[in-house]
């Protein structure tokens, strides 16, 4: 059994848990505090509000425990809000500097609400290097605008107002998607995460 933790302080963690349940040999684990992380083989930081998740992570020491997990090489996937929290540099398209709490683990720069507001949320097909074509649901989504060091962009989305921007990035054991694999019923991204766990 591969134990995959899902950070469950706010957001659509239940959808991630339900998607993980569809994969054989996977046991999803609800993670609310540092002690829930003791024996996970991989971790998912879900979608939600990144400001809320970031601040609630610190209540029970999850922040330090996740940094420790990342340093031990455990695969961590952040989707949407999760991608923001993993990034080193974050600005909002309208507000600019957000001053929010970040784990600052990945060498990527992210723009929050990059495509606009909820009205502009969209669905499209995205081609992910090493994964293939996936149905991608972008909700008030961020965009990965820069990757440096060991970070690499694996997928782009070509958007009518924001241009061509990063949608998936990887850096060693860290994976981010700015869309929501948990909403599309497409499990390819999870399989990719699990293959990272087996490596």
């Amino acid at each position, binding site marked *: 059994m591969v134990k995959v933790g899902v950070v469950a302080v706010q957001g659509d963690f239940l959808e991630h848990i339900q998607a993980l349940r569809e994969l054989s040999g996977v046991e999803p684990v609800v993670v609310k505090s540092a002690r829930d992380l003791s024996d996970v083989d991989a971790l998912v930081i879900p979608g939600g509000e990144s400001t809320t998740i970031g601040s609630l992570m610190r209540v029970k020491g999850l922040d330090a425990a996740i940094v420790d997990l990342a340093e031990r090489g455990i695969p961590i996937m952040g989707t949407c809000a999760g991608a923001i929290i993993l990034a080193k540099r974050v600005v909002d398209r309208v507000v600019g500097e957000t001053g929010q709490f970040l784990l600052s683990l990945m060498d990527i720069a992210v723009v929050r609400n990059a495509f606009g507001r909820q009205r502009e*949320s969209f669905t499209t097909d995205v081609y992910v290097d090493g994964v293939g074509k996936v149905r991608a649901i972008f909700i008030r989504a961020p965009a990965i605008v820069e990757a440096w060091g060991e970070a690499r962009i694996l997928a782009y989305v070509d958007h009518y107002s924001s241009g061509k921007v990063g949608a998936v990035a990887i850096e060693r054991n860290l994976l981010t998607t700015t869309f929501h694999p948990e909403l599309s019923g497409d499990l390819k991204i999870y399989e990719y995460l699990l293959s990272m766990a087996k490596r």
Partner: protein
Amino acid sequence: MFKLVDSYVYIEKLRDLIYQLLEARDRARSEYSTAAPNNPAIEVGSTLVKLGFISMLKGGVIMDVTNEKQAEIAEDAGAVGVMVLDKLPYDVRTSGGVARTAGLDVIKNVMETITIPVSAKCRIGHREEARLLEEIGVDLIDESEVLTPVDDKVHINKWEFKTPFVNGARSLPEALRRIYEGASMIRTKGEPGTGNVAEAVKHMKAVVRDIATLRGYYESGYLEGLWIYAKENNAPYELVVLTAKLSRVPVVNFAAGGIATPADAALMMWLGSDGVFVGSGIFKSADPEARARAIVLATTFYDDPETVVEAQRMVSERASMLGIDVKTLKPEELMQTRGV
């Protein structure tokens, strides 16, 4: 004498009518098309994208605010969204008069100040207020009983909007009627602006009780029970069946109406809410910053008594809004009976 040929003429007209209806349907489809204007591969405003957005709010707190200062306090406290009003529900209640949607400039200011989703209320049945809110880019529209309804029979047809809607409900049939009209999210009505959570508890329990009943019918194979329930309660049959299968409200269901303390929020979460709206409870208290933060904590960690205690100690009961006992309100002063 009626000739068979007359009937042929009639049937031909009937055929034309059917074709006209089909054309009208196609026109409606292209009018509400979800393809982005200059990039057909990108689909915006679909039902999935609306419901998906609401999924992201789960486990969070949406706070009523009347200006960008309050919105900043809400964001800093960890709210997942704000609801912009002209007056807080308590003030709507005490000031009387007609309550309408908030000023568009006020909403715009809030949108330019914070990064979290911004919601606003429109009057029940007021399609044009909703259109204005969609046009300026509000993320979620609350067709709310807190404002003065303009139509006491029909709600807005929410399917024609690209922006998701939330509606209040006192019971499961009311919730299912709103979903049938296109609501992407439900909240209890409670009794807004009272600082008294009793009505929200009553409404959430009514929903939970009906779901248990429907689940029972479904599992025991008594499907006729679902049919009778739908008929007797004026609830859409398809959604009754869906509710029975899922064993929950088929969309995200928040608590609202009278939540004033961290313990109130924890109670509503324990009753099965997916999250919490706080109206007057925060900015009608004497300690809004601490209270906002404490309610966020109690909502996330509602099943961990230690943290709820910690949250409850962050606020002072002396600072809570005084509130109104619902039993002292006259029937015409109740907001929950608007738009059922």
